[in-house]
């Protein structure tokens, strides 16, 4: 099936059955649940995660245990160069079954690396799972920091979680008080400009892609794209790690919303690419 969501074999709405994962994760906890299931059942022996260090700064790390994966739960909305640790994971950590999660551009980078591995000796065979997330755009760390400190008036060290939904960016504090909301239109000037040449919203080349859009609160939409992705999700469902419900193909917040956002991104960025070409600026080709 090819449409605005890329090629996929099936589409499900799911969430983790693990209470601890659901508590800490962004929505349905699909990535966390998949990683933990993979690590505990020998399908993966290490995974690339986007953890945070001091100052809510995203940093890519290699996780090998349930605790390490759980500590990196949640969406960061800021740059975590996950590809930068892939070679180390395979060469220094000697991982043979690496799990990888990335934004659409990182999944494309990973796939390009696997297609043309000139600088990655004996690495491609050790990648066992590529999970993609839905992504509209990203914020540079300092932009996110400015938004949180100057607009929301929260010390960056007190931030425990950020979330974008319902037209707002929510900043959650460590003390558990009510999140502070920043309207999305205020965040637009802080977006990373290079995201505006990206034509991929749903990680069209991942084994499976996931995100909150298109499903009810606390659930995630999962687009299963190839055999490897299907096998993995099937095993998780069979092991009782995921509960699923039928996707909503009609409703306003169902799959039509996912398709709408994907089309919006593609239309908007196609214009930007055209504009760049008019200006004589290079675009990825």
């Amino acid at each position, binding site marked *: 099936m090819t449409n605005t969501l890329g090629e996929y074999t099936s589409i499900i709405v799911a969430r983790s059955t693990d209470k601890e994962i659901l508590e800490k994760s962004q929505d349905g906890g699909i990535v966390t649940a998949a990683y933990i299931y993979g690590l505990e059942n020998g399908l993966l022996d290490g995974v690339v995660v986007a953890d945070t260090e001091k100052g809510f700064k995203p940093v890519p790390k290699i996780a090998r245990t349930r605790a390490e994966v759980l500590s990196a739960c949640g969406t960061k909305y800021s740059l975590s*160069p996950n590809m930068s640790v892939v070679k180390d994971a395979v060469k220094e950590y000697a991982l043979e079954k690496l799990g990888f999660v990335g934004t659409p551009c990182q999944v*494309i*980078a990973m796939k390009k690396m696997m*297609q043309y591995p000139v600088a990655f000796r004996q690495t*491609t065979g050790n990648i066992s799972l590529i999970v993609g997330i839905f992504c509209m755009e990203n914020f540079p760390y300092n932009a996110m920091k400015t938004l949180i400190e100057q607009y929301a008036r929260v010390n960056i060290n007190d931030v425990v979680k950020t979330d974008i939904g319902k037209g707002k960016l929510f900043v959650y504090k460590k003390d558990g008080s009510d999140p502070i909301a920043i309207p999305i239109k205020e965040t637009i000037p802080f977006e990373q400009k290079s995201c505006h040449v990206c034509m991929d919203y749903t990680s069209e080349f991942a084994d499976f892609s996931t995100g909150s859009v298109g499903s009810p609160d606390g659930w995630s939409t999962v687009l299963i794209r190839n055999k490897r992705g299907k096998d993995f999700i099937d095993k998780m469902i069979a092991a009782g790690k995921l509960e699923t419900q039928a996707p909503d193909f009609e409703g306003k917040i169902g799959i039509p919303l996912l398709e709408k956002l994907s089309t919006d991104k593609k239309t908007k960025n196609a214009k930007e690419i055209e504009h760049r070409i008019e200006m004589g600026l290079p675009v990825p080709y």
Partner: protein
Amino acid sequence: MSGCTGCLISLADTYEKLLDILSAVDLVYGITLTDELTKVTETEDKIVFERAYPDDVDIALVEGSVCLDDHHAVDLIKEVREKSKIVVALGSCSGTGGVTRISRGGQNPQPTHVSFVPISAVVKTDFSIPGCPPSTDSIVKFLMAALEGDTDYLEIYADFVKYQDASGENLIKQVISQGLCMGCGTCASACQMRAVTMFDGKPDIRMELCINCGSCVLQCPRIRMPKAKGLLEV
């Protein structure tokens, strides 16, 4: 040419895959890998044994840069071009000049040899595979695609011939300052010199460590996107 034979070792390092390739091709010329055709010239005062480059070669993988101070090297690369259908610059020295391009030269045993250029500066080059050395996997994939005539796959290497100089500087000039870098970190992972580290999601380059190999430039998805065909199933 002028290189360290590391790329040749990378080619031989393909283990059983090398056998797949060898069953599909005749290896007719290559130091250490094959018996050499020898040209014997007998004159009145001496007998000269020379390695002879065979005629009608389909694909020539050239390793190392051309030393312009050495007429043997210049003559040989010209001969290779004349007698081969496809000339491939295998590895960074051959494609971008690599570390030989940014060295001062003049060392023993050839102190007069100082000028090194990529082969594409001397002869028309069809493909350029960067890397110091290019990984065995990428060489196998390249050769298999060449045997099958998969021009879609090979196009990126044909395009890379235009880089007679490629270094970490290109990441700044071609990607970051053009507003294209989205911070995936592929360059940092690709660089075997660890000259690239990620700082706030952008590459931070220590040029004094860069060996001009161009791996990061080829690997960057924001200079060239991969072909969508077959990408899902890689």
